[in-house]
């Protein structure tokens, strides 16, 4: 006979205001199998927990039901308390009478009755609970970092400095990401490359970091602590060990007219190329889509001039396997593609601004390249069309962000700041020029950020106009920008030499395929979702996978770096233990009834079920059955729902437990609310 203890929590006023907790306790005490029931103001507090421990000792309880908030909130707390009193923690369950009852109902009779029913359901379940022991899993103390931008670099360096091996995978030929393309950074105007390149060099030379550039994650198997990752090393066509990085090949390559990705098309590159001088590794790669040899079958100039004999046209894509315990996703962003439909046809471009049809209408990163000392103009701000310094530049904010009619509702966060920076960079180089900014709001929350914007306006004289631009068209040398100044209520027409569109941060196109491989969720814009927006901002709902940088949402450099260090420390916390405990809620197969239909094998999303053969002592095959690997199983229950012969059960959620919960609700004719009825009878008699 079970001896269940029921503990009703008032949660201060949260439950007590709507539910008559004393009555619930009284009713619970009359349920068959309940040995003790009481209520208390704060069950999760120290005295509350002591109350539970004391009742266990006094009444010899065999199961506990805490009727309070959601198990998400305090299940751990109560299970720990119960364990301290010497009872298996999985014999303790919570009946949620806060989120599922008191918060969503008015104070009345029905609410209290519902609370009693919720308690009764859980008592029926706990009667059938069995002690479970957590599964122990070994921890592989190596980390995979996907993406070699500033966030990925920071996460990799932190984990490596913590003494653990890191695999860093970057899809481009060099690490550095978008930060390497920037000229100067807000709010201090220090040179972006100067602060980033030392970190890039560190990543390239750190003994604990294994760098895979020009590589992509192909496949992810396994689970937290034991991921098996397949990495595709794309054919570089250059032997990275033989190559000395002298650059002779890129000087002699005859295919010279390919728009450089690093310079955002403002400059051309060759088919064999090092993306930028500070690249890590400083080794070239052959772009097979443009290489004359790969297109036409002859040329081989780079092979002839290479003094080290490093050019290898026969190289093929290579696949390597790595085992890691934790994964940091730092895949970064791509700018909203203006004027093109881009990968998201539901978000149309900005045809009215003529981007892509006029060389003097450029996006934010193109302006960065124009202003950068390593850029196509050597840092002089010159118009792409004729190479003259522009006398007036118009900046348009919120391109691809906060635009409901284009189905984009989010704020890209960094554009207000980078536009203010652009106006300053421009004014510092073209003193007699005028910078105009069309804005909707100025969002400059951040340390020293608003001061920076004020400086752009007050000291450097940027002209801020509140309103949007309707059209841009060319009239001879000039671009005519037609817009509205909503503060004065006037229509504005500005003759500009250069127009810069402050384009928004968007996730990398096609990044959802990687997220699907990792099994992590993402929002409608394809930004990765964190486990909790406030309290678990760097973790994914999938255990062992962490987020860093703009793959999760728009961020500036300090925020991306902070999040990367947060993700790294989460991984290091995991690595501080040799093995980890996993929830024992896993599937179990009844080998006596299993009919070996293998439906469970097919439906299991985690590949945790395998086929097992049962043999007698002589080795004769008796039967084939399904077998669950408890360290792979996540307890999702798909197999249990699928099983034809009812042979699969989930520990802690067996069919017997669930049916008894339902039956307790359906118990027709049973004396459901004895004390209420007794009262009613008493009144009738009186």
């Amino acid at each position: 006979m079970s001896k269940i203890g029921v503990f009703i929590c008032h949660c201060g006023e949260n439950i007590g205001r709507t539910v008559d907790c004393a009555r619930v306790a009284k009713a619970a005490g009359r349920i068959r199998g309940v040995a003790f029931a009481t209520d208390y103001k704060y069950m999760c507090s120290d005295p509350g927990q002591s109350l539970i421990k004391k009742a266990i000792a006094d009444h010899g309880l065999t199961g506990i039901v805490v009727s309070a908030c959601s198990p998400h909130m305090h299940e751990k707390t109560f299970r720990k308390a119960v364990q301290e009193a010497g009872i298996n923690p999985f014999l303790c369950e919570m009946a949620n009478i806060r989120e599922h009852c008191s918060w969503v109902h008015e104070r009345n009779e029905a609410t209290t009755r519902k609370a009693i029913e919720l308690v009764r359901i859980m008592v029926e379940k706990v009667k059938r609970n069995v002690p479970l022991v957590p599964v122990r899993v070994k921890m592989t103390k190596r980390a995979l970092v996907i993406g070699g931008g500033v966030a990925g670099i920071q996460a990799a360096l932190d984990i490596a400095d913590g003494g653990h091996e890191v695999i860093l995978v970057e899809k481009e030929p060099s690490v550095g990401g978008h930060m390497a393309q920037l000229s100067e950074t807000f709010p201090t105007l220090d040179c972006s490359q100067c602060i980033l390149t030392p970190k890039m060099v560190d990543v390239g030379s750190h003994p604990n970091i294994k760098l895979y550039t020009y590589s992509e994650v192909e496949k992810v198997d396994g689970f937290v602590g034991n991921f098996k990752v397949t990495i595709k090393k794309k054919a570089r066509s250059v032997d990275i060990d033989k190559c000395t990085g002298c650059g002779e090949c890129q000087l002699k390559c005859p295919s010279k007219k390919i728009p450089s990705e690093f310079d955002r098309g403002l400059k051309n590159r060759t088919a064999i190329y090092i993306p930028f001088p500070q690249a890590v590794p400083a080794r070239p790669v052959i772009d097979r889509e443009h290489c004359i040899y790969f297109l036409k079958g002859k040329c081989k100039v780079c092979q002839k001039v290479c003094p080290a004999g490093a050019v290898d046209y026969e190289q093929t894509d290579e696949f390597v396997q790595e085992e890691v315990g934790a994964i940091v996703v730092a895949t970064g962003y791509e700018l909203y593609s203006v004027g093109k439909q881009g990968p998201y046809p539901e978000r149309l471009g900005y045809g009215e601004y003529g981007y892509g049809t006029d060389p003097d209408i450029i996006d934010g990163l193109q302006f960065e390249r124009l202003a950068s000392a390593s850029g196509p103009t050597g840092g002089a701000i010159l118009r792409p069309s004729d190479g003259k310094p522009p006398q007036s530049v118009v900046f348009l904010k919120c391109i691809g962000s906060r635009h409901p009619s284009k189905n984009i509702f989010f704020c890209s966060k960094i554009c207000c700041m980078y536009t203010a920076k652009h106006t300053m960079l421009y004014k510092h180089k073209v003193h007699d020029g005028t910078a105009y900014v069309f804005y909707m709001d100025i969002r400059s929350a951040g340390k020293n950020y608003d001061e920076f914007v004020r400086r752009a306006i007050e000291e450097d004289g940027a002209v801020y106009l509140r309103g949007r631009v309707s059209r841009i068209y060319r009239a001879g040398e000039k671009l005519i920008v037609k817009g509205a100044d909503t503060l004065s209520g006037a229509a504005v027409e500005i003759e500009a030499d250069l127009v810069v569109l402050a384009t928004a941060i968007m996730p990398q196109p096609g990044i959802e395929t990687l997220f699907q491989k990792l099994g992590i969720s993402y929002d409608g814009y394809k930004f990765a979702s964190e486990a909790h927006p406030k309290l678990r901002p760097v973790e994914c709902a999938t255990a062992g996978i962490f987020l860093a940088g703009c793959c999760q949402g728009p961020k500036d450099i300090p925020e991306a770096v902070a999040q990367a260090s947060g993700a790294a420390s989460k991984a290091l916390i995991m690595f501080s233990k040799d093995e980890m405990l996993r929830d024992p809620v896993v599937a179990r197969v009844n080998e006596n009834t299993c009919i070996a239909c293998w439906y469970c094998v097919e439906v299991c999303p985690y590949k945790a079920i395998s086929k097992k053969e049962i043999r007698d002592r002589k080795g004769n095959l008796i039967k084939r059955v399904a077998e669950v690997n408890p360290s792979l199983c996540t307890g999702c229950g798909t197999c249990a729902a699928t099983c034809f012969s009812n042979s699969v059960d989930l520990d802690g959620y067996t069919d017997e437990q669930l049916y008894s919960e339902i039956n307790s609700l359906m118990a027709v004719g049973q004396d459901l609310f004895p004390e209420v009825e007794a009262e009613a009878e008493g009144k009738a008699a009186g």
Partner: protein
Amino acid sequence: MKYAYYPGCSLKGTAIDYHTSALALAGRLGIELVEMEDWVCCGASPIHQRNPMMAAGVANLLLSLSGEICPRIAVLCAACYHNMKKAEVEMRHDKKKRNDVERISGIPFNPEVRTTHFLEILEKDLGLDALKGKVVRPLSELKVACYYGCLLSRPPEIAFDDPEQPTIMERVLQTAGAETVTWSHRMECCGASHAVPVTGAVLRLVNDILLSARDAGAEIIACACPLCQANLDMRQAGVFKEFGMAHNIPVVYFTQLLGLACGASGRDVQIDKGMVSAEPLLQFKNLL
């Protein structure tokens, strides 16, 4: 290819040349345009401002007229297209609106109907390759400024090309061998019906558009809207009086140019209807 053809009022009056040239062109391309019976005015352009429900009701009536001919409707006038397509899209996606319109007009909405602009028919249904095969007299060395005005590609919900940077007319005319110019005012407003009450404003707008076309090196302007054609063509005399600028640039319908390219005569496409005559230019280019 068979379509239910809705000409609209302008094409039977001031823009008869648009109607005639479209039929001449369609005949040569094997496109059958069967005029709807008993059609009425679509209400352009004041109706959707005055009473949006009535606008949708009228459009629903027009859409229903296509029933016996073919659910695909061909429209030439930009304003008619706008009114009919907008109602069609709204009724397809907004159940409440559809119920209201059906109740008011007393006609059930047929979700099969598709309002299509003639340009879209040329590019998507016929195909540019097929069009190219029918060209017997390429419009070579004819510098054309394609003018869309405000209504043809907007709003985005009903656009059949990029709503802010459409190039469908360029693509179609280039297929016929024309040299299309890149110019700035292809989407600016011509002033539309303000020509009557506020003529001065319209003259300024027309002058800007014509100047921009000429600066880009255009010899002729192609358009797809009766009101645009009327304003740009007819107001050139007024522009001369007001601003002293004699533009003398012919403004024709794209169907007229395509008709000529496909072998129709100047008479077939009524090329002589314009106030600024296109004939000297086209004769010079050996197209007449």
